């Protein structure tokens, strides 16, 4: 397995956000993590990319409560649960965060360069930039525009492009289609399929379950911090209880 999460627990004070989950993603897979709002999907992605530990550090330093973070996360054969957030991307794991979060005051191309921050070889970064522009031509057209002025769809493309600039082995994407028009959603999903076709391993968090289940190799259903089901899209859709109670379909 490229990514293995083993008995992950996340607690903020008394609130249990993640309650002992284990999951894995194999090389080349497109795996989804779905579930109702507040299930803990984003927290899972934040935990594996070091952001929960980072937040814990801040809380401790400012003496504003504590976070409990337990479990083992292995990536590419190495444990990464105690690697600081800013070193995770070095290992080849990157998160395209919820709500896209481009650096709004920076231009489009500056955002992309920021994504390749750790690449010392400027030529290599430049090559990646061209690849991202090929994938998202709209970003090339708007390369000098301030990112805050982009439309939601463009910002999502930018956020994915920025994450790709680190040339990740595993790309985690948190709710890329949320807040977009149906047309743009489809475009985002097409791009994700294109990335999969290029051999990029993806862990995708989404609300748009019916579309996502057609794209993925495997899926995990998360609810109240627990994995309550997993399997192929078809298998999960066959299960009436899961379909109605947890996926709202």
């Amino acid at each position: 397995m490229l990514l293995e999460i083993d008995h992950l627990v996340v607690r903020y004070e008394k609130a249990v956000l993640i309650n002992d989950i284990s999951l894995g993603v194999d090389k080349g897979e497109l795996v989804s993590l779905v579930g109702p709002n507040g299930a803990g999907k984003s927290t899972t992605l934040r935990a594996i990319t070091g952001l929960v530990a980072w937040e814990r550090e801040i809380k401790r330093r400012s003496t504003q409560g504590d976070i409990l973070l337990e479990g083992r996360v292995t990536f590419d054969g190495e444990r990464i649960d105690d690697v600081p957030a800013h070193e995770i991307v070095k290992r080849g794991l990157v998160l395209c965060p919820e709500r896209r979060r481009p650096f709004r005051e920076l231009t489009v191309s500056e955002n992309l360069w920021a994504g390749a921050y750790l690449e010392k070889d400027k030529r290599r970064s430049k090559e990646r930039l061209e690849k991202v522009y090929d994938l998202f031509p709209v970003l090339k057209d708007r390369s000098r525009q301030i990112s805050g002025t982009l439309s939601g769809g463009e910002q999502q493309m930018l956020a994915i492009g920025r994450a790709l600039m680190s040339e990740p082995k595993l790309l985690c994407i948190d709710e890329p289609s949320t807040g977009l028009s149906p047309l743009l959603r489809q475009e985002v999903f097409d791009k994700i399929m294109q990335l999969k076709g290029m051999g990029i391993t993806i862990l995708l968090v989404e609300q748009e379950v019916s579309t996502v289940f057609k794209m993925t190799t495997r899926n995990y259903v998360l609810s109240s911090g627990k994995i309550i089901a997993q399997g192929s899209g078809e298998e999960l859709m066959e299960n009436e209880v899961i379909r109605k109670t947890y996926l709202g379909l």
Partner: protein
Amino acid sequence: MNILISGLITGSMLALLAIGFSLIFGVARIINIAHTAFYMLAAYSIYYLSVRSGVNPLLSMLVAVVAVTVLGLLVYLFLIDPIREHEGAVLIATIALAMVFQEVVLLTFTGDYRTVDFLITGFFTVGGVKVFYQQMLTFGVVLLTLVALWLLLMKTKLGLAIRSMAEDREVANLMGMNESRLAMITMGISVALAGFTGAVLAPLTVLNPYMWMEPLIIMMAVVVLGGMGSIKGSFVAAFILGFTEAAVVFLIPKGAFLRGSVALTIMILVLLIRPEGLFGVAFEEER
């Protein structure tokens, strides 16, 4: 003309101070009240070196800036960094630090007013107004520094990281930017700017142990007017306030003491009418 010259000089000086203050606030959310105290220390270091010890004035300036920067980094490492996430504590600690600097200066140099010689003497007159070469020199050097700073921020990888971190430190972390390292570097740049401002201003001003207070107030007004954390805002606001101040002094010659209160008034008005300032963005929650 008088307003123009002193507005430009004060404005560019304020810009240097305010940008330095904004930088470290943006990157690490550190409100460094002692910022202008570093500026005072640099001015006094030059006085000590060039006037008392007879060291070459230019060399004194260089030594002063380097020494103040090193001191700033030590202060950061041992005082600020451990409490960095605790805004209230940082505020109190840096106020205390400024007081300590003030007392040290008071004990070492007494409260007497001190002056540092001009680097170049002489003046020319434009429209009946005396312009000292020293004023032009200071203005030129400050302007050059502002340009260099702009290039650093806009054209280098370090600048990109500083701007990214200032905007969204969580995402900056995801991109592999090391927060503590950047905060340290930014603190160095910030204090170096304060020291540099003190160094180039020293010949044009009168040194006393309380000289950090007034620029602190005006600098805060600049930062609030420009928008907390916005570098562009600090720049524009610095010149606005620089000219306002010069105009006040010019229009009410006896009212020079009003400068601080004008700045404070502007600051309060901005806070009431448009708290995010000219260019600031209303702070978004980090999550």
